[in-house]
């Protein structure tokens, strides 16, 4: 019966969520319409200046797409993004102009053969002229920018997110300074000139705006595609998990440093590519083109369109660019006319073109205060459940039949804690704790608040450092490992005060739990080869199966954002997320807190079923009936020390335990707990 319930309820979101390849039709139509309209624009509107403005707008759209990966997806504020734009620009600028002319030596022969350089006869001896093709420069500039992205992102990764903002701000300031001062390489403040225009099959792009427009349009389309592919993959989910809650992300197996650097590198690569395009189009590069105002402008585009919203940031970029190149001048003229009409001196003096940065500042503040999700929000709230669904009779799910857990019959303890001490300043949170959890067992950790229970979980899962001792998971040392590695080894946890990713759906939350079990990398996510597709499909099926443990409490809500769920359902999602990682040991921190008695019994049964499947469970719990019904062994902590250990019945009668819980006098009496 239970498995029946699972399959019928799972059918609701299956249609939408399992069809991985099919992007929602509406989005596809909007995209196609945009591309067709943009492609026809230069043909229908044959005005070189306007086409040029359009090409610039599209170039900024690619920058906004890149910054969106960093700020929108991963939630890392990069204030020096223009630096990567500059690096890409100078890469092509230097390698396709007459800036560097080293003396000719045989060393250059192979490069000449590859047509990367030319031998130029000069009176003082032949020199090398760099002639890097624009098309080769695009990936090269992207790679170099990505390298610098990693280089400058790395120092800040151990720190809280805020420092990244200031370091990138500094970096964004330094790159133009270097460009200005290193004249032999960059021609300094004068700027690089004579940068070659791109060629394609013998056709020279020259200074005609049209071919540039089409290159920019192709780049935008490519990067929209890449952005969507990344967003809807293991990688994108991990980024968004980091954005929502770093600690929970790392506890669920996300390698924070690696994924942050990846976001930084990919964002930088987009900018590097655009930099090459931009100088090829202008055929000049000066340090002023890449200063702080440019970084802010791109940020404004992302904020206006909607952080994390791929189509939003494209719209934001195009709107702002067109605003600057088309509308502001007209608007200023109208305002002046209006000023003359009503006799307002102020209106006649307003110059909106000059005030563009003031407008940017206002946009930033107004959007943050009144519409943080931007013009086109990244997540649309799904339709609410129907009345019937909301009031449907609760059909309990079951963990029975959940495949993938084989009971581990081994004599090696699942978890073996030896002499672990944790100190916060002068406070000893755990003092030389010993604890053994047999494989396949259920152990409850109880104790008054502040007794060190959660600290025990934190130190086990790598969130807190211990001063000494050892923690072994099935015989392997895990003490000192970072949280994501502990999860990969097979210990998954929930948190006492629920740490979900609030703006992600139930399904995505549970999918993040599988991060460590999936292989898809950035390239695989973009190409989405059959292997990736199969992996993603299996991951989704597994996620729905795990969600199905809780019957129709969660399954119909799989596509809802978890922030819209009830408290008890959030606890269930968190447990599902931990189970999705296929743990060998499940650490539950007060799983029934905030649940009513009926819900508590239901959850206790589900935990029991998981245990029957062979999962080892460690449980922090205050409700002692739950403890008694589940645990084979109980460990009592008080003031960071182990007070007692034994069968539930024994512990209930232990004098020291009673004293700790109920006070000295109660302990002297015969009052038993529960």
């Amino acid at each position, binding site marked *: 019966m239970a498995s029946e319930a699972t399959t019928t309820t799972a059918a609701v979101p299956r249609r939408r969520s399992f069809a991985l390849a099919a992007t929602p039709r509406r989005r596809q139509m909007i995209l196609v319409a945009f591309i067709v309209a943009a492609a026809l624009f230069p043909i229908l509107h044959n005005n070189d200046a306007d086409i040029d403005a359009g090409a610039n707008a599209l170039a900024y759209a690619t920058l906004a797409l890149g910054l969106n990966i960093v700020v929108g997806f991963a939630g890392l504020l990069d204030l020096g993004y223009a630096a990567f734009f500059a690096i890409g620009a100078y890469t092509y600028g230097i390698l396709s102009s007459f800036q560097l002319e080293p003396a000719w030596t045989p060393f250059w022969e192979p490069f000449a053969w590859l047509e990367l350089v030319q031998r130029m006869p000069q009176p003082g001896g032949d020199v090398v002229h760099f002639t890097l093709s624009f098309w080769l420069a695009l990936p090269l500039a992207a790679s170099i920018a990505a390298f610098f992205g990693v280089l400058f992102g790395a120092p800040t990764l151990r720190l809280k*997110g805020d420092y990244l903002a200031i370091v990138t701000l500094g970096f964004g300031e330094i790159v133009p300074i270097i460009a200005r001062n290193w004249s032999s390489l960059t021609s300094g403040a004068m700027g690089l000139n004579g940068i070659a225009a791109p060629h394609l099959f013998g056709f020279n792009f020259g200074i005609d705006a049209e071919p540039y427009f089409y290159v920019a349009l192709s780049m935008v389309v490519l990067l929209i595609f890449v952005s969507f592919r990344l967003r809807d993959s293991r990688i994108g989910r991990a980024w968004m998990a980091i954005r929502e809650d770093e600690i929970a992300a790392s506890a669920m197996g996300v390698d924070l440093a690696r994924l942050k650097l990846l976001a930084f590198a990919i964002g930088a690569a987009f900018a590097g590519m655009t930099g090459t395009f931009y100088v090829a189009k202008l055929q000049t590069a000066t340090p002023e083109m890449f200063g702080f105002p440019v970084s802010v402008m791109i940020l404004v585009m992302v904020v206006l369109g909607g952080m994390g919203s791929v189509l939003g940031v494209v719209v934001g970029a195009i709107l702002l660019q067109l605003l600057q190149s088309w509308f502001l001048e007209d608007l200023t003229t109208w305002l002046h006319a209006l000023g003359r009409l009503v006799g307002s001196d102020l209106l006649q003096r307003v110059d909106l073109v000059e005030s563009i940065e003031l407008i940017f500042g206002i946009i930033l503040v107004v959007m943050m205060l009144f519409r943080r999700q931007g013009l086109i929000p990244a997540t649309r709230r799904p339709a609410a459940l129907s009345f019937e669904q909301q009031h449907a009779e609760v059909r309990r799910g079951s963990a029975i039949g959940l495949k993938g857990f084989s009971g581990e019959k081994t004599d090696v303890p699942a978890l073996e804690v030896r002499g672990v001490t944790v100190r916060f300043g002068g406070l000893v949170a755990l003092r030389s704790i010993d604890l053994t959890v047999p494989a396949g067992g259920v152990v409850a950790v109880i104790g008054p608040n502040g007794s060190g229970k959660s600290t025990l979980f934190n130190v086990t899962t790598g969130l807190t450092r211990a001063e000494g001792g050892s923690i072994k998971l099935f015989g392997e040392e895990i003490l000192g490992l970072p949280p994501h590695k502990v999860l990969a080894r097979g210990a998954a946890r929930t948190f006492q005060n629920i740490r979900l990713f609030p703006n992600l759906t139930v399904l995505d939350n549970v999918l993040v739990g599988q991060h460590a079990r999936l292989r898809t990398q950035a390239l695989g996510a973009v190409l989405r080869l059959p292997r990736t597709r199969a992996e993603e499909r299996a991951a989704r099926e597994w996620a729905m199966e795990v969600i199905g443990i809780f019957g129709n409490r969660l399954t119909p809500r799989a596509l809802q954002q978890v922030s819209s769920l009830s408290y008890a359902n959030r606890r269930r999602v968190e447990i599902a997320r931990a189970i999705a990682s296929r743990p060998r040991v499940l650490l539950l921190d007060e799983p029934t807190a905030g649940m009513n008695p009926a819900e508590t019994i239901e959850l206790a049964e589900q935990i029991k079923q998981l245990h029957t499947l062979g999962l080892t469970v460690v449980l922090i719990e205050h409700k002692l009936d739950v403890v008694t019904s589940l645990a084979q062994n109980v460990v009592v902590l008080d003031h960071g020390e182990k007070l007692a250990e034994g069968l539930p019945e024994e512990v209930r009668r232990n004098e020291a335990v009673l004293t700790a819980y109920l006070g000295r006098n109660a302990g002297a009496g015969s009052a038993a707990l529960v």
Partner: protein
Amino acid sequence: MSTFDLLLQQTINGLSLGAMYALLALGFTLVYGILELINFSHFNVFMVGSFVALWTLQALGISGQSVILTGLPLVGVLLAAFAVTMVFSGLLGVAIERISLRPLRNVKGPAAMITTIGVSYILFNIILLTVGADSKNFPNPLPTARFQIGGAILELREILIWVVSLVLMLGLYLFVQKSRLGKAMRATAQDPEAARMMGVEVDRVIITAFFLGSALAGAGGLIFGLYYNFTSFIIGFTAGLRAFTAAVLGGIGNVPGAMIGGVLIGLIETMGGQFIATAWTDVIIFSILVLVLVFKPTGLFGTLTPTKS
């Protein structure tokens, strides 16, 4: 000048600049200590402060370099200029907090930081659009008394900068350490939630932090004008970045740390300018920022920031 004299001269200059950075760094550190927010609007509160100082001096009849005062009038003018500038800047900081940051107090992610960038940009452009892009002469009513120390020259101006900065910083330090509100501030920096439960009015603490930090930035703006004899809409960015580095160097959230960090940055700037090249000053200071963050993120004297579980 001998190398020793140069060293001495640049120490004198560095101390003056350092005093200015320290005043500015205190604003970063106070706000970061309590809200964990890098307040980018602080950059341009400093710049606006410098213009308010300019306008106050002009209103008092001090314009150009020709008006020299001595004795009581000089003291009165200086007191008035510092008082007006600091009160105005302080109120500006409070307004920024009240209007643009308080609604975002409990919003996670970079929203509040982005807002401060927006506010910074608004201040920057309001001054640019109203005052213009050319830099303005900043009057200096001090008599040109000079003292010769070896080969170096110590001007009255420098002494004034040192004394004023010392008084302000000492005042702030005593306020934070001794006063009731200062104690509330330190408590909030440690644990806002616990402080609130113990009856600390967190809003008042935050407003005080913004007022004091911004007022000190205003004083820094005045000192900038006295030191360089000009002011301009662009001065906030560079000075702000250096002062932030000073705050990180001293340990962000740490009040004495920000003071010492400021002086160190000032000395590094003048020495670097003398013995390396001014064009690379920002590169040097930025490298220090990155090195401190990598190797000693708590700064030289330890941080004091909220503990978040």
